[in-house]
């Protein structure tokens, strides 16, 4: 039994909502059941993002799907995300990875089960997700020495960043991991495993290099998006950032505050500079912005913004049970839609700022 199952996990913060149209759309695009999105669906850009990132995780340009699964496991384990860990573990088992190899990954990343190339990618992914301290030039050099080219390095970082996003969304909402934890041992899954594996693998796992179009080269945090150019994920992130910014559930000022606080916590100068400009455009003065970012409070903020800022900092490094309790507390002053968007924006901020640090290091 995986020790991940012993991580304290609160009851789910949200009630599931069925949306047959979204379910059909999801199944058509990924070949899989809709999964966790039923708990937080309803925010249009977040529904799209979940779908796009699911596709990006399952179709790669330059790395193989087994490595993607390993990255997903190692990042989810590092973030103590029981949900994503159980989901990835189940998928790898269904796809035929031996239990011994999965257990090895859980117990010891540095085990001889992994060759130098795999180990370099996994260490990099974990360092990227952890960002304590953030990856630097030496981490890139280690990947180059292990034989990865620039596109493969960006793709490894992209996969890790998608997991940074999903880990936060599923952990903060405390989505129930129990079904996935038991799934690989169900008799019908064991019996039909080859068929299920065939069906899943039929969705294909290769994508083509696809540069951003001129109109996709602009927009908020475009420097970070341009660093991913060539990967379909760059387009997904562009759409996500545009959708998030256009949404009117939370104010733009609140969203920029979340980005600025996460950038300050992680020390991402690139995202911090842009978030600062967004806040200026939203009516905060420079001294007020500095006050907020230095003390996480200012008379210039509304009570709700104060609450949002305090919550945003907690999403950078956390323990699951504590962030879930803080999430439950943050929910009290917000509607369901606002809370869902707050968690989503904070998760996107964590992903984008980590990619921003990487862009600086590269």
């Amino acid at each position, binding site marked *: 039994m995986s020790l991940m199952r012993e991580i304290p996990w609160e009851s789910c913060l949200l009630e599931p909502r069925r949306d047959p149209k979204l379910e059909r759309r999801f199944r058509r695009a990924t070949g899989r059941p809709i999964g966790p999105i039923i708990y937080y669906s309803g925010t249009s850009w977040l529904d799209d993002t979940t779908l796009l990132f699911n596709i990006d995780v399952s179709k790669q340009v330059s790395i193989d799907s087994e490595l993607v699964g390993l990255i997903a496991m190692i990042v989810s384990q590092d973030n103590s995300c029981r949900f994503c860990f159980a989901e990835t573990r189940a998928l790898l088992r269904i796809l035929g990875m031996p239990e011994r190899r999965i257990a090895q990954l859980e*117990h010891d990343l540095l085990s001889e089960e992994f060759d130098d190339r795999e180990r370099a990618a996994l260490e990099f992914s974990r360092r990227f997700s952890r960002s*304590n301290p953030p990856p630097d030039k030496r981490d890139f050099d280690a990947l180059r020495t292990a034989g990865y080219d620039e596109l493969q390095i960006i793709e490894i970082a992209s996969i890790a960043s998608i997991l940074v996003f999903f880990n936060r969304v599923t952990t903060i909402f405390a989505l129930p991991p129990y079904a996935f934890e038991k799934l690989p041992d169900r008799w019908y899954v064991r019996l039909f495993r080859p068929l299920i594996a065939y069906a899943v693998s039929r969705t294909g796992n290769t994508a083509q290099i696809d540069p951003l179009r001129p109109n996709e080269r602009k927009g908020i945090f475009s420097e970070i998006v341009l660093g991913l150019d060539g990967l379909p994920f760059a387009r997904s992130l562009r759409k996500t950032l545009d959708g998030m910014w256009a949404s009117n559930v939370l104010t733009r000022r609140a969203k920029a505050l979340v980005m600025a606080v996460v950038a300050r916590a992680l020390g991402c100068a690139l995202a911090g500079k842009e978030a600062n400009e967004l806040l200026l455009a939203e009516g905060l003065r420079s001294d007020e912005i500095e006050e907020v970012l230095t*003390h996480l409070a200012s008379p210039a903020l*509304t009570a709700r913004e104060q609450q949002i800022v305090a919550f945003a900092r907690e999403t950078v490094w956390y323990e699951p049970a504590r962030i879930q309790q803080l999430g439950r507390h943050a929910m009290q002053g917000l509607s369901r839609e606002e809370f869902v968007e707050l968690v989503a924006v904070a998760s996107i901020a964590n992903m984008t700022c980590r990619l921003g640090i990487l862009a600086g290091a590269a």
Partner: protein
Amino acid sequence: MDSSAIRIAIELGIAALAVVLGLLLRHRRREAGRLRQRLESATGKLQNLQLAFSRFAPDEIIERVIADGPGEIGEKKEVTALFADLMGFTALSERIEPNVLIRVLNGYFDRMSEAISQHRGYVSTFIGDGILALFGALTPNPWQGDDAVHAALAMREALAVYNRELAERGIPELSIGIGLSRGMGIAGLVGSQNLKEFTFVGGTVNIAARVQDLTRQHDADIIVTAALKETLDPRFALRALPDTQVKGVAEPLSLYAVDGFADVAVAGD
């Protein structure tokens, strides 16, 4: 012996051999199963140990220890140190039974540790009845100064509640002095070959301890240095104390007593 008897004997021999081999195989399988179980249990224990360790040192340090052993591991960091000590504890220890004293002390440590961790601090060590807590040591924390002083205020509040509980049990109340300082130093594994701990060494910790010593002299339970005060939220109510010379520091220190915190006035929603 006719040929059919020989054939039966051979068949019986083969059957017996098959049974023996089957039993041997079953025994080997069981043995392998037991070994696998023991290995899984040992790995599980190791993983538990690693999880437990992560509460005492940054993940990065733990991994380096696992990979290379507890060698010379250290890094330069900016940290805020909080040093808390019980006042008059020696006198108290002479007035109450040892087992009651230990219960009182453990209750105190529990409450103080909770107040510290609620504000993202990490208890580095208990020194007798003293506590050394660090902010910004495990993960980078640009808000470490505010967090540390909020933790000190939470400790003051938690102790007041605890003192009411002690009074109900007829136990004399406790009082603390807390010193806080911020600065650069080295975070790493420190100790002998046999015993090492993750802690922070440098002037910052020494100054926090010296400042804590001054709480009685200045009749203030929480004192911060000027270096820390510069980074604090202006809503902390601070009171300037006379500059004081402390051992090991060339210049007299500018110090401030922390009286409280005024919650922020907010703009209308």
